[in-house]
């Protein structure tokens, strides 16, 4: 069979040498540190693992309840519970160093200095494949305005982290930005290698038996299928504004969702909330995407990226920027 001889290339270049075997990642906060699902998932096949949000100091997180189901989605308010960058490096990086799957450390902070210090400590450590910046955090130095909602803040934190590390750097956009394109441009201009889109959208639920907010922290981040149209819109807009690769996130639960994000301009996707329902989904999506590409006679999934964008536009990036040390 002649067709079987055509090798299919599902690899993804997110810049600065971060090259993934395939475009199916798992989203921060839904897959822990990659060790928790080991008994039921072939973790090493996943394109990359974005680990739980990591801060400079350990954090206890928010009071319970921290999660609740909502129509076609869920809210979470974990509150960035994590053992701090030192704890992550001691407990998990030694595992990651022996893994085939790249682990991207998701980093959160309250000030530019926080982010920079975490990035510095991750630099050069075995097992760390890259950094994903969670910039949907209040900037204490700017009256609590989220970095992700402020082009200057988003650009400043990206530039500062860029200066502090040579690690591949992906920055996670918020769906709440009034004009996400200006934020994305500021981040790209500040030297980010890739963007992930999007983070959760702030929401709440009511406990009517007690007549009070259901979540212990009142507000939580909405994720799951309910968020997908919003995330698709962000990817679609950002793909027309920047030339760095975009990783789509928001309600990915099937091959159709993967293809939708790729059509809107994402070169890869992160599976998040759907992992809770089906931990084996990310690995299955790799196989389903490969089968789809073969059936369509494609040599790479990258041929699909941006196919729904306006024809006059340039095709979005499927390749990270060159890096010359």
């Amino acid at each position: 069979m002649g067709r079987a001889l055509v090798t299919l290339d599902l690899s993804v270049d997110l810049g600065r040498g971060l090259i993934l075997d395939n475009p199916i990642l798992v989203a921060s906060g839904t897959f822990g540190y990659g060790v928790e699902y080991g008994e039921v998932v072939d973790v090493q096949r996943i394109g990359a693992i974005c680990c739980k949000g990591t801060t400079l100091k350990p954090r206890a997180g928010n009071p319970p309840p921290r999660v609740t189901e909502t129509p076609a989605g869920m809210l979470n308010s974990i509150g960035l519970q994590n053992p701090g960058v030192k704890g992550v490096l001691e407990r998990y990086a030694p595992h990651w160093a022996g893994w085939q799957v790249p682990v991207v450390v998701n980093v959160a902070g309250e000030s530019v200095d926080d982010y920079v210090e975490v990035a510095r400590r991750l630099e050069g450590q075995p097992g760390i494949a890259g950094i994903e910046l969670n910039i949907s955090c209040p900037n204490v130095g700017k009256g609590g305005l989220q970095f992700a909602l402020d082009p200057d803040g988003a650009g400043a934190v990206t530039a500062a982290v860029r200066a502090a590390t040579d690690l591949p750097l992906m920055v996670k956009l918020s769906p709440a930005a009034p004009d996400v394109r200006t934020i994305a441009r500021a981040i790209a201009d500040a030297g980010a290698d890739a963007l992930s889109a999007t983070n959760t959208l702030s929401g709440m639920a009511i406990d009517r038996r007690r007549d009070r907010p259901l979540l212990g922290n009142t507000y939580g981040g909405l994720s799951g299928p309910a968020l997908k149209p919003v995330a698709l819109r962000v990817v679609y807009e950002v793909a027309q504004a920047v030339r760095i690769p975009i990783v789509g996130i928001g309600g990915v639960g099937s091959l159709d969702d993967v293809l939708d994000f790729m059509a809107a301009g994402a070169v890869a996707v992160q599976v998040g909330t759907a992992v809770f329902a089906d931990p084996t989904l990310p690995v299955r999506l790799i196989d389903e995407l490969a089968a789809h590409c073969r059936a369509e006679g494609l040599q790479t999934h990258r041929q699909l990226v941006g196919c729904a964008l306006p024809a006059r536009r340039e095709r979005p990036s499927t390749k990270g920027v060159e890096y010359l040390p």
Partner: protein
Amino acid sequence: MKLLSGELLESRQLLPGQWLQRFHAPWLAGGAQAGQFVHVRTPDYSGLVLRRPFSINTFDRRSGEASIHFRVTGKGTEWLARMRPGDQIEMLGPLGRGFEVDPKSRHVLLVAGGLGMAGVRALADEALADNRQVVLLFGASTAREVYPSSLLPAEVEYVVATDDGSFGHSGRVTDLVGRYEAWADQCFACGPEPMLAAMARLAATRHQRLGVARLAGRGRGRQSPRGSSVARRRAWLQVSMEQNMGCAVGACLGCVIMGTDGPQRVCREGPVFASEEIEWDARW
């Protein structure tokens, strides 16, 4: 922990709005311990995105059967109650850490509030199989919510309290604990958090009331770390905790409660804890 299907064998309404479902799931029944739970997948990811956790109510290794007992409280449990014998249900389990029974314990006190019965029910079977004596104290709001004694092994001494006094003792199930606290070598409780907090207060002052010396730990060179199996076995009271849950394998930190040693995952360090591991008046 495995991710497999179980075949529904029997589904019946046990009490108003409460269902008992029996599954053929040898992989689950074979590996389960009393106090563990199973995470059941809901049917349609585009609508219901989270699995639903249920205590493993009973399990039988020989027949490969396991059961769950639940109240219909929303769309997920409504769907589950509509399932019919022969239907396949996808489950992840067994999950979490179960009850730790000290091999020397001869008298076992179980305390259940409402649906908390499902949390301790399997331990009644397990304790009897190990030739222990079992007293089960059960609390419900009213007579029509009382778990039928016919579903319990005959060897279990079953004592009921109802809030409205329509059956058994009139008052809280925790009122009954005093009668058995001297007799019981260990106590295991599952129910609403206020009930468990009341149990924890009783357990903390039990030694003073009984006027007995605390023997545990005496003469031992070092204490077992809090939360270890050994430390839990030495605790008089173990509680099965409940919290909204996401992944159920320890990844998402959605089900975390405050412990005396910091945040604890109900799905991984629990659902069973020694009562002294829990910060009952937690301030975050």
